[in-house]
Structure formats: C-alpha cells, structure tokens
C-alpha cells in the first residue's frame, strides 16, 4: 500500500544535507551504524568481543534469518508479508506433530509444505484479485495462527524422543568445526537468495515490480505469477525457520512465532536500509539489519540492562533509522 500523508508539494520545501552527502549517508549509513555499534559495544561491554558470544548471537539470529530472506523478496517486490509469525508457528506444529510419531523428515517436509501452501494462498489472492497485500497477509496471520493453535487446542507438542531424531536435531544444534550448523545453513540460503535476486531473471523482475509496477507490466512481466511465486517463497522461508525451531526445541510450540518473528522480519529489512516500498535493496542489507538488532540486544543484555527487551530495541531502532534517513522510504 502506498501511503503518503504528506503532499509532494510540501515535501519539495524540505531542505537538509547537501544532496551528495545525503546520498552517501543513505547508501552507506547502515554499514557505518553497524560498525559503530560493534565498536562501541566491544569497548564498553565486557565479554561482548569474544568468539563464543559472536557465535551465540549468530546462532540465535539464524533461526530468524530465513524469515527475513522471505520478507526481503516480498518487500523488494513492493509488498509486505504480515503473516510471518503465524506461519512459523504453524510450520513448527506441523513438523513437531510428525516428528513426535517418529518421522522427523516427513515432519520437515510437512513444515515446509504447509507454510509454503499458506504463502501460495496469500500470493494467489494478491496476484489474481489484486487485493491489498497487507489486508491479505493480516488475514493469513489470523487464519494460520488459529490453525496452529487448533491442532492441539493450544497445547505444546512434546514427546519427541531426542535419541530417535538425532539427525533432525543436528540441523539446529549440531556443529561443524565448531560452527553451528544452522549458521552454515543460514549462509547457504543467503547465497541462494542473493543469487536469485542478482543473477536470475526472476530477481530482476522482483526489482522491476517493486520499482514501478505499471512499467513492469508493460514490459510483459506477469503480475499474478510473480506475486504467487514471491509469497510462496516467503511462506517457504517461514517453513524453514519453523521446522528448525522444532529441531532445536524438540517440541511444537503453537505460539513460537507470535512474539518477535514478524517484527524482526520487517525490522531487519527496514533497518538494513532496503526501500520499504520496494525496488531498491538487497539481501545483504537485510542480514546487516538483523545483525544490528541482535548485536544491540545482546550488548544491552550483557550490560545487564535487561529492561530493554528486544522489542523495544527493534521498535526504537526502526523509528530512529527512519528518521535518520537510513531506512529508505521515500
């Protein structure tokens, strides 16, 4: 939805930094901010600068990472997916249900499948009927959230025997040469997403749609097909995160995605400096965005300022970055 409460005429009056400087700030400010945060935290916060701590942050972060990849695709194409939290919960429940009866790999497939299917439905509605993505995915948020709870009447699925699902558990908890497997997985998917965006025609079409829908369609890009594909991938990304959560916790939590998943998936994209209305940005920025949020939270945790929860950090950082012009939204 293109929402603009301010008129273009009024905007013309705005003056500020000289154009050149502002352009550099907009382009590199996010990275500067990230390095500044790392530097300050390394100096000020005890125990921050250690390999263990970094791996710890990266591991926690990785479970959210996949979701932000999906959200990046959606936002770059000029949409927004608000259903993420629920889809993660749903995938978690689906995979746990099958893992609990001894079929963890079927569970993984079910988790990926059910979340992708929800994305497919959202994408079809948006693509074919051109209903507003916010409304559609908000409805999906509610629907999938309800489904996740409906399976077990709101109870968790327990009783996954760790000894029987060792391989599955390894996905989330295993290490290769001290590096958590999930971090490696996050890296692999990062390159996949990057390749998709940068080196395929599909990626080029995503940018085109987000840049100027009308011009993209005149160039022959199929709106419906694109939206369906993009939202299905977005759903798939939730499926990955949700299933990995099952692999880590070895329980199915129907509310696992309800808290911070949605806010982090959108927050990372925004804080990374991707254009919130689509067309500009890349998945690397999203990763930087998520790292800013996680390292900041981690630093505050280590300082014992636990009163600053992740939510506040994300909220304030999103608003602050918007204000500083680091989150591109014009």
């Amino acid at each position, binding site marked *: 939805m293109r929402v603009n409460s*301010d008129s273009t005429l009024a905007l013309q009056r705005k003056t500020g930094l000289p154009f050149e400087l502002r352009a550099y700030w907009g382009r590199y400010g996010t990275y500067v901010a990230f390095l500044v945060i790392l530097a300050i935290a390394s100096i000020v916060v005890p125990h921050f600068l250690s390999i263990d701590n970094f791996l710890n942050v990266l591991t926690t972060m990785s479970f959210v990472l996949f979701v932000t990849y999906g959200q990046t695709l959606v936002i770059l194409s000029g949409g927004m997916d608000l259903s993420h939290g629920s889809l993660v919960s749903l995938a978690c429940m689906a995979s746990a249900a099958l893992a609990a009866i001894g079929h963890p790999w079927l569970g993984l497939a079910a988790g990926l499948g059910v979340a992708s299917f929800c994305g497919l439905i959202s994408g079809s509605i948006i693509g074919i009927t051109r209903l507003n993505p916010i409304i559609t995915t908000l409805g999906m948020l509610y629907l999938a*959230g309800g489904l996740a709870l409906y399976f077990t009447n709101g109870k968790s699925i327990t009783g996954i025997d760790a000894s029987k699902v060792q391989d599955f558990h390894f996905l989330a908890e295993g290490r290769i040469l001290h590096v958590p497997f999930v971090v490696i997985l996050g890296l692999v998917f990062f390159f996949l997403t990057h390749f998709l965006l940068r080196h395929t025609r599909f990626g080029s079409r995503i940018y085109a749609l987000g840049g100027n829908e009308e011009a993209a369609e005149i160039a022959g890009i199929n709106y419906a097909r694109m939206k369906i594909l993009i939202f299905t991938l977005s759903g798939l990304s939730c499926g990955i995160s949700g299933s990995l959560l099952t692999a880590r916790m070895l329980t199915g939590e129907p509310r696992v995605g309800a808290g911070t998943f949605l806010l982090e998936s959108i927050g990372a994209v925004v804080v990374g400096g991707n254009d919130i209305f689509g067309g500009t940005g890349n998945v690397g920025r999203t990763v930087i965005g998520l790292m800013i949020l996680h390292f900041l939270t981690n630093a505050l945790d280590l300082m014992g300022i636990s009163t600053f929860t992740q939510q506040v950090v994300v909220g304030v950082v999103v608003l602050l970055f918007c204000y500083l012009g680091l989150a591109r939204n014009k």
Partner: protein
Amino acid sequence: MKLPVRIDWSKFGLPAAFFVMLIIFTVINPAFFSARNMIQTTRQGAILFLIVSGQTFALLARGIDLSQGSVMSLVSIATISSIYVLGAYAGSIAGILFGAMCGFINGMLIAFLGIPPILATLGMLFVVSGVELVYTGGVTLTNLSDIDQGRLFWFGGGMIGPVPVPVIFAIIIGFLLYYILKYTLFGRQIYLIGTNADASSLAGLPIKRVIVLVYTVSALLASLGAFFLTARLSMGFPQLGEAWLVLAIGGAVLGGTSVFGGKGGVWEALLGCLVIVFLDNGLIVSGVSTFAREAIIGVVIIVACLGSVIKRRV
C-alpha cells in the same frame, strides 16, 4: 434467476448476509438468540466497535494503525497500575490518556518526520509492547482494592437496566463519531486528505494537524475499548490487545471502509464489527473450538474483502 426488483448487493449484501447468519445460528442452537447471549455479544461488540472505529479514522486518512493492539495491552497495564496510585476513576482516565499519547506520537512521527504510517505504527507496536512487557515482566496485574475493583468492574461488566454499560458508552461515542465525521471541519478534512493529499494541500487544508489528530483518535478509541475490557476482567493483562488488531482492520474493511482512503465511516465500522462478533459468538454457541474460530474468522475476513475488491476494486 431473475428478481422482480433489482437489489443493490453492494449496499445490502452484507446486512443481508448478516441476517441470514443470525437465522442459521439460531436454527443450530436456539440459545444463540436468547436475551442473555445477545447481551453478552453486544457487550463484546461494543468494545470491538470502538476499536474498529479508531482504525476507520486511520484508514479514512489513507493510513493504517498497526499499533492498536499493543496500545490496548499497554492501556490495560497502565490503567491497573494507575488505579493502585490514583484510585479507580482518576486511574482509569490516566490509563486511557496513556494510550492516546501513543497515538499522538504516531501522528507526530507520520506528519512531522514523514515516516510512512505502516512503519511508524509498526515501530510503535514494538516499542509499546516491549515497554509493557518490561514493566510487567509478562505478569498479569491484579490485587485491586475491593472498592476500586467494584468501581472499575461496573464500566466493563455492569448494566444500566438491561443494557451493558460498554454498550451505552459505545452508542454515545458512536453518535459522537458520526457527528465528527459528518458535521465537523476535522471530519471532512479527513475524507479530503485521505482521498487526495496533493489536492488537499492546494486547497489549504492543515494536513499535518489532521494527521496527528487522526492517529490520536485512533489510539484513544482503542484505549477506550481496552479500558472496558480491562474493567470487565478487573486486571491488567499484558496480552490483552494481541488478537484485536486483525479484528480491527478486518472489521473496518469488511464493513466497507476502503484501505485507499476517503471511503467509509461509522456505519461501516458498526456493520463490520457486528458481523464479526455475532459470527464469533454463533460459532461458540455452535460448539466450535476457540482456535478453529480464529481460523474461520480469518477466512471470512479475507473472503469478505475479496468481495469488496470485486465490487469496488479496493
């Protein structure tokens, strides 16, 4: 099939569907249509109506308020906490003002810092819910004194004659909002700005002031809804608002308010929220589980919105 009289389904479709729905639920379980159930449902409906009306203001101005749910949770906590200190009446007002203040900040972020409404209110959602979680640690606030509890409960659970107190308030506020939208400068300016901000600027309208007010009103109405809910529970519940945001936007759009601004109003809000609460209640009475209800309502919202797309290309 040919009807002797042409019916404008875009206008009467939803009310018609609503009545058909009432009949179906009554057939399934006659208890649905009992006075007791109706009163319970209108109590819930009154609260939803306030929240949906608030969202309607934001949508009319071509914006959206995603912070409503978390503002509601905050109000619940703030009200109870304030009552500990200030007593039932002053404490309630303080709690509601807390919520309205969040809306005021939303408005300032949008109007003066130029942050898109969806981001500004999303950011506010995180900040507010974080703050109240920090404050409460996720724990429910209870232990009101008996006097305060009695006074507070009246607002949410009390009756005036056969009518629940929130319903009375909702009716009064509903008329007030109708008046504001239809008969005040502010109301008309919302429609104009929501329809075409550039043209509004050239027509000399005070865009920034209107935007700030719109989001303040949106949060204020959500806060009132949260207050009545809190009063009924007589405790501060940090997850109070979680589920309401979807219902607020869904209800508004379902009733016929456009997400592209300038179209809709109090009547649409009422219609949308009546459909949702009676559907929800009907499903309860028909023995559908809580979580299935959520899913069904999600589907209904999407389907109804689809209907409106086909009808008006929302």
